[in-house]
């Protein structure tokens, strides 16, 4: 009865990779933005860029999942706020609530900044909503409780990033997924890609000389996170070398694939590592190397999730 069949799955494909990628990226973008605004330097423009793009990423992530559901109307059962209490062992139930409340607190944190911007007030419908008394009351409330709202958003953001890994970890048959390293790897990757994205915002979206110190800090944090990701991946490599046939076969799929080796490990991690290292230690004369590094990190973040989904090997005893 011990003859085994090994196979990868075709149930969760690119769309779940996109769900995990945009979910982690959006959540970490919001968390970093608010922590920066609360504890480094008040930066309304960064808040607007970070909050709005973060919420858009979370919405995109949720939309990708929703479009692939079999029975769309039944999604109501996971949207009800008590879903994670009723089904506490389901990480999708937790993750859905994290994402919803992340978007709510994220928009509330950005609301006072939005009301101060003429550009937002001129947008049809949104502008009218922002001018209402309720929006004014909410904006004052959020200003008074700024740090509380910011931390509520941040906690949900961290929860979302960790959730993306916990979701894969909850599938016991696949050694590559069912281990404590996955939530750690996906959380580190989510924050690394978010720093990369925010560096793009700081360089391209709102270039400002006053942000030079902030850009330097972001580059340093991204460098540390890329280093941590490389270290975690090394432990994965070591873990999958032996111990289970499922893990070993996953390793063979990953480490014999040029997309993983060159695309993700090389271009997505090692090249940005050295670009950021030079930037942090000696600096660059222009922002282009950092922009290139950030784009590569963002690409690598998606490739990581895509390859993790495709390389999960099931072992069937028949």
């Amino acid at each position, binding site marked *: 009865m011990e003859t085994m069949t090994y196979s990868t799955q075709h149930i*969760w494909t690119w769309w779940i990779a996109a769900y995990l990628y945009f979910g982690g990226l959006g959540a970490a973008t919001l968390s970093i933005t608010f922590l920066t605004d609360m504890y480094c330097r008040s930066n309304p423009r960064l808040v607007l860029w970070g909050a709005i793009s973060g919420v858009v990423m979370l919405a995109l992530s949720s939309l990708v999942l929703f479009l692939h*559901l079999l029975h769309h109307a039944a999604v109501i059962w996971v949207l009800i706020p008590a879903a994670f209490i009723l*089904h506490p062992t389901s990480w999708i139930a937790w993750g859905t609530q994290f994402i919803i409340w992340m978007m709510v607190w994220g928009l509330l944190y950005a609301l006072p900044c939005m009301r101060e911007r003429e550009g937002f007030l001129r947008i049809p419908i949104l502008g009218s909503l922002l001018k209402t008394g309720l929006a004014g009351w909410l904006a004052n409330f959020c200003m008074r409780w700024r740090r509380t709202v910011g931390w509520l958003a941040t906690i949900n953001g961290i929860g979302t990033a960790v959730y993306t890994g916990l979701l894969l970890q909850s599938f016991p048959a696949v050694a590559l997924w069912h281990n404590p390293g996955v939530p750690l790897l996906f959380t580190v990757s989510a924050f690394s890609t978010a720093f990369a994205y925010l560096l793009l915002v700081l360089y391209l979206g709102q270039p400002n000389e006053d942000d030079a110190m902030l850009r330097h800090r972001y580059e340093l944090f991204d460098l540390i996170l890329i280093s941590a990701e490389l270290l975690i991946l090394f432990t994965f490599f070591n873990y999958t070398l032996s111990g289970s046939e499922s893990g070993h076969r996953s390793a063979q799929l990953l480490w014999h694939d040029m997309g993983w080796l060159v695309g993700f490990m090389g271009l997505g991690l090692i090249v940005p590592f050295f670009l950021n290292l030079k930037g942090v230690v000696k600096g660059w004369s222009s922002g282009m190397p950092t922009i290139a590094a950030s784009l590569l990190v963002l690409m690598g973040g998606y490739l990581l999730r895509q390859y993790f989904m495709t390389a999960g090997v099931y072992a069937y005893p028949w």
Partner: protein
Amino acid sequence: MTRYAMVIDLNTCVGCNACMAACAMENQTPVWKDKWRTYVHDEEIGHTDQAHRRLFPRLCNHCSNPPCLTVCPTGATYQRPDGIVMINPEHCMGCRACAMACPYDARYEATYNDIDEGRTFYGDEELQRQVPSMDKCTFCAHRVDKGRKPACVETCVGSARQFGDLDDPNDPVAQLVAGGGARPLMAYLGTHPNVYYIDENKRRG
């Protein structure tokens, strides 16, 4: 208490696939896309003159610690007190996390398209499925509740499938399992499956 289980004897399965046909008719499975609640895996083992053919019936293992249930975000997957793992199609949104979590490849999708196909295949008035959802074996819970055996067990010509109550010490299935003659699949995963197999080699030995 009752805890239902199935024992499958790999020595007596002849690969007639009558279990698949009986199950398909009983539970209206989407056979047009080769999806079944129970399936007989047919494989040649080995490459020498010692090679032999293995027929391996598969189905939901109705685990006592089912990973498909713990990952379900809507509560659509639930377990009855008698151990049978069920799906409530009305609550299933079809995220497929249960299929990813199942180590036994026991779940498949039933889509809107399958409902349309089902109307043609099983008849508009006869079709039970109203909404799309994930689907899997239920040990024919509707038959079991009436004191009958699952369709696959009742139809098995080789008596390869036996169905019984593990909590009844006089039940032959309980005795087979307690005696160690039948073993679950991948017990190391901690899923505590309630489908047991009598190894083909033991009979040969």
